[in-house]
């Protein structure tokens, strides 16, 4: 895939506070890329720099190989779906969507055609004459997407567009957004702090924290092979254990050695080890690897969240099996459930 946007050493300071610490990022054509991270990690700033609403303190934004860092937003072939939609309150749905086309002085008949086509795409074909205030949150969301897409941008920026919707609608819109992206075949750059949203929709996830990129990868990579403690903690729940990398395919933690599938770390190196709660099994005493006692059980709907206290720490386990508090059990897991990561500062 061709590179469409390249961020090179992007740095941003606000009043002496560094918000972005030299970001390097390649965004490809037709890619659904998500910038994921906690609030204040710099993801929105990155997006705003790409959109032209914020100027980087240093570094370059290349679009199709050309530096656009100094180009004002109205000259960029990029459109944005804003966090609170930013629909024009004095125009109806049709005029909102036609805004960009009218600026380009297109023919009225062409504009009407395009607006109708895009309204059909987002499933609002009969809403052209509706007033913005007469639309539900989900419908406003679609209008905002339609208004951006109708200009046929090469890149669509989306700044937490689903944040204001309720859970059910959000899930439906996630699927819908992904479908729209496939249908129009353009690059989406999506900002969110919701890891589940990122995992559902993205081709590529960029995990950010503290103004720096922590990991870039596909959803499966990010989930299964987190590169550090931050990523492991941020994406899904996890048990993070400090351990020792004995040699290739062998790690030591909680005073025992375990076979694993990781290699390439130094022998005797201190590492962090991730054990996902859903990868841990609770078995009868003597049949597993680590001994412990069940200290609490929480019902979470689909599964139970069970805390198992061992001599070293408390493990979180997700299981659908019924257990009882106070029972002595063993924890079991497979070699591939052990994920070894570089050790970094504690969070």
């Amino acid at each position, binding site marked *: 895939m061709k590179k469409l946007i390249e961020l090179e050493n992007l740095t941003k300071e606000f009043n002496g506070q560094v918000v972005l610490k030299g970001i390097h990022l390649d965004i490809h054509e037709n890619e659904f890329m998500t910038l994921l991270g906690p609030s204040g990690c710099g993801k929105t700033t990155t997006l705003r720099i790409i*959109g*032209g*609403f914020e100027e980087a303190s240093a570094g370059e934004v290349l679009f199709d190989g050309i530096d656009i860092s100094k180009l*004002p*937003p*109205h000259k960029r072939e*990029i*459109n*944005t779906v*804003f*966090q*609170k939609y*930013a*629909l*024009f*309150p*004095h*125009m109806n749905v049709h005029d909102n969507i036609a*805004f*960009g086309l009218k*600026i*380009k002085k297109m023919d009225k008949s062409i504009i009407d055609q395009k607006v109708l086509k895009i309204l059909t795409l987002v499933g609002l074909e009969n809403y052209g004459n509706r*007033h913005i*205030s007469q639309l539900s949150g989900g419908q406003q969301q679609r209008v905002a997407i339609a*208004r*951006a897409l109708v*200009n046929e941008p090469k890149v669509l920026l989306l700044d937490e567009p689903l944040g204001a919707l309720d859970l059910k609608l959000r899930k439906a819109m996630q699927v819908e957004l992904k479908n729209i992206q496939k249908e129009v075949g353009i690059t989406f750059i999506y900002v969110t702090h919701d890891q589940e949203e990122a995992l559902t929709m993205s081709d590529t996830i960029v995990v950010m924290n503290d103004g720096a990129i922590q990991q870039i990868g596909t959803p499966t990579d990010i989930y299964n092979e987190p590169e550090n403690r931050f990523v492991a903690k941020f994406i899904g729940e996890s048990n993070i254990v400090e351990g020792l990398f004995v040699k290739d395919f062998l790690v030591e933690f909680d005073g025992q050695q375990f076979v694993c599938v990781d290699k390439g770390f130094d022998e005797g190196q201190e590492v962090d080890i991730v054990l996902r709660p859903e990868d841990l099994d609770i078995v009868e005493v003597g049949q597993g690897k680590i001994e412990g006692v069940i200290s609490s059980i929480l019902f979470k709907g689909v599964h139970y969240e069970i805390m198992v206290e061992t001599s070293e720490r408390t493990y979180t386990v997700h299981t659908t099996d019924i257990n009882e508090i106070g029972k002595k059990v063993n924890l079991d897991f497979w070699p591939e459930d052990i994920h070894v990561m570089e050790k970094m500062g504690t969070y």
Partner: protein
Amino acid sequence: MKQFRKLVTPYCLWLFLLTVVPMLLIVFYAFTEKGTAITTFSFTLENFTKFLDPIFVSVLFRSLKLGLLTTGVCFLVGYPIAYMIAKCKDTTQTILILLITIPTWINLLMRTYSWISILSNNGLLNKLFEAIGMNSVNMLYTDFAVIIGMVYNFLPFMILPIHASLTNMDKSLLEASQDLGASPIQTFFKITFRLSLSGVLTGITLVFLPSISAFVIPKMLGGGQYSLIGNFIEQQFITIGNWHFGSAVSLILAVFVIGLMALIFMAEKRTNNSVEEEEGGWLSNAKRKKVR
């Protein structure tokens, strides 16, 4: 809250005594003429027909013209000021708004007198002109002086509501407009100005209505020959003592004002309908809060 409802009664009483009764008196005076005895009044429409004289009507129109001119200049001067203030940092905005409001704390007469000393033939401005080698200009007691005084007095009432509507505006709308390809100038006319219209209408109301009935400023800065409807009513009551005719003219002016208010209200309703839940101006915000 029901048990507090009775607390409204004294307020209603005061309102009736201080506002409604005087108004009724004006209506009463307007439709009557003095009889032979002090206590006898008889119904008449003569006070109104008398006003139809072209001389009187032209006074009314001169007042309307002055009101329109004042409002127009206030808008042309006030909008850019409000816009620039709204662009400043929050703390700067507070200071600037304060500076604009402070003059209104000082008595109107004082402020108008100071304009006399600025505009008069040996006034501050003419001294300045002489200093740079220009001829002195006769400014006091001209239309120019009256307009200056009026604009100076009413400008804050134009700036404040426009500033309020501009600062209440969602900044992301401006970003969205630019994002969609509109240049900053296009964005101003298509979005910013359009969404500040309710503030503009409020400003127009606050300036136009008092300025058509103004009489102190025109009298002081325009000289005695400057006859406006306000001066005319004042004369009828104070100099001539014909309360009946004065009341009738007041009533005619009131009807005019109510008609204009209705027009402005309709215009505001139209813009508000299309801006609905969005930020409106001062008055419309207050109105909406009451409804909620």
